[in-house]
């Protein structure tokens, strides 16, 4: 009964809507949450939304994995490998940044005991 879901247009719409709603959830968190860890989580959610969007929209079920071997030589029937490569890189970078951020936050918390970003105002003016 969910056959229509297999149509590429529907899949893309669902992916787009889902990714965008995820993005806005993250954005909402970014704009309203004050706790530093929550802010990081929001950022992570936004990033994931973009990854999802990209992979979801560039992946084509009709095409095969982009691996060239004895049987597969037609580039035209393969999926585009670039999005995946890009997203992998981006995930790595994103994780690195988040890890760095969390480590800063921990150090900062140890020194000052503050966790809310709007109270981080050691050097006002």
């Amino acid at each position: 009964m969910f056959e229509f879901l297999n149509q590429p247009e529907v899949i893309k719409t669902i992916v787009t809507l889902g990714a965008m709603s995820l993005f806005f959830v993250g954005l909402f968190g970014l704009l309203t949450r004050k706790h530093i860890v929550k802010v990081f989580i929001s950022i992570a959610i936004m990033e994931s939304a973009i990854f999802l969007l990209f992979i979801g929209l560039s992946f084509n079920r009709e095409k095969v994995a982009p691996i060239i071997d004895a049987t597969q030589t037609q580039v035209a029937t393969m999926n585009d490998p670039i999005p995946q490569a890009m997203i992998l890189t981006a995930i790595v970078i994103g994780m690195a940044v988040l890890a760095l951020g969390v480590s800063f936050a921990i150090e900062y918390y140890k020194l000052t005991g503050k966790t809310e970003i709007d109270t981080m105002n050691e050097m006002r003016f």
Partner: protein
Amino acid sequence: MSSTLFIALPLLFGFATPLLSRLGKNALAYTSVLMQLSLLGLALSLLLAHSSTTVELISIAAPLGISFVLSTASLLMVLLFTLLMTLFSLYYLFQRRANAYANESKFFTLLNMLLAASIGLVLSSDIFNIYVFFEIAGISAYILSAYSKTALALESGLKYLLTGAVASIFLLFAIVLIYLHVGSLNLAVIAEQFQLLPYNVKLLISLLLLIGFGFKVEVFPLNFWVTDVYQGSTSLVNALFSGIVVKAYLFVFFHILYLFLPQGEFTLFLLYLGGVSMLVAEVAGLRQTNLKRLFAYSSLGQVALIFVAFAMQNIQAVQAAFFIVIAHSLAKFMLFLALASLEKTEQNMHIDRLKQIDSPFLMVMMFLAMLSLLGIPLFVGFVGKFLLLKSLAVEGMLTLLVMVVVASFIEAIYYFKLMGYMLHKGTRSEKVEVSLGEKMIFVSLGLSLLLLGVFPMSIAGFLQNAAEVLLDQTAYITLLVGG
């Protein structure tokens, strides 16, 4: 292949630092200087060897793979970056402070990563590569900012990191959209096809790019974090931030803008955005009493000025922009280094302490830098400001002209307030020793400000060439995708 060296060598060096640091006490600093000097030499030799506009094109696994373009424009930036980094390493070497950076090898790793990423940003002709270098430069900058691990430093590092992360999300979003619609990451290909896209998509991409880069190029409503970052980081690192990092981001942003972002109303909007940024930054700096923060405001103003100049999009204005880039990089670099020399005892200097400090040499050097920043004739700062305002006048943008001039006046108010403090008559208790090597660096920077100001024609042709190259989209596209 030489241009890959500009990226590869610092990266290699950066990751080899743990080994090099075992060689001896100052081995790291010496080898760093050596490496950067060789890069500088390479850049200079390239400059002398190639009279044509495009110096080199390196493509790795074309057409899908990575490519770098070393044009006159990017060569200029590379030269500037390597020069400043060399001076920075030399300064670090000469300064001989006791326990500034406990873990020297990490520090040098980060420094060289920063250099490699900045150069990479300038050279890349591939939008995803730009994203990667954007992040590498960002990460090394975050760590440098938080390096001393005091509460202030960590706070500034954290803020830098958060804004950087948000900015990169917007940038990534834009890149994803571009790829989904164009199917390529190559700047030239995008440039060719961008105008064919539907209006709404173009609009969304432009705005996302504006927000993403806007954080990094410190344009008005997106720059509230900058002053905190400058205040929390050490002056030494600030010298790099305002001398190298911002300039790299600015260059890339406008490089992309010229290639495929919409013209017309959008650029007009950018112009006024720059003008407003400058005014707001200068007004906000007016009553600042913390020196580092004050210089941060001044940096914001100057960067906005460069922003205006680039946004003018004509050869003269872009040439002016390059002049201001050089002037501002040298002068701010000098100011922050001078501040670092003054700050040996205490971080976060209050403006009042200038009355106490007894160091005529540093005072004179700071005067030179400030006068150049203010655009006083005989200094290179004047040349840039003059050329920019001239082209504003010729284009008939009188409102913007007056805005820039008013902002410059406000900047003059607080810089001369500083000078007033420095010229204060009275007993001066704090003697600041400056080693000969430091003096040499300051003198060479100061002299270059003066010499370039008196003989701007020595580089004017080169800068004009660079401006032409940067503005010439068709040549760039032809170069990358072929006729």
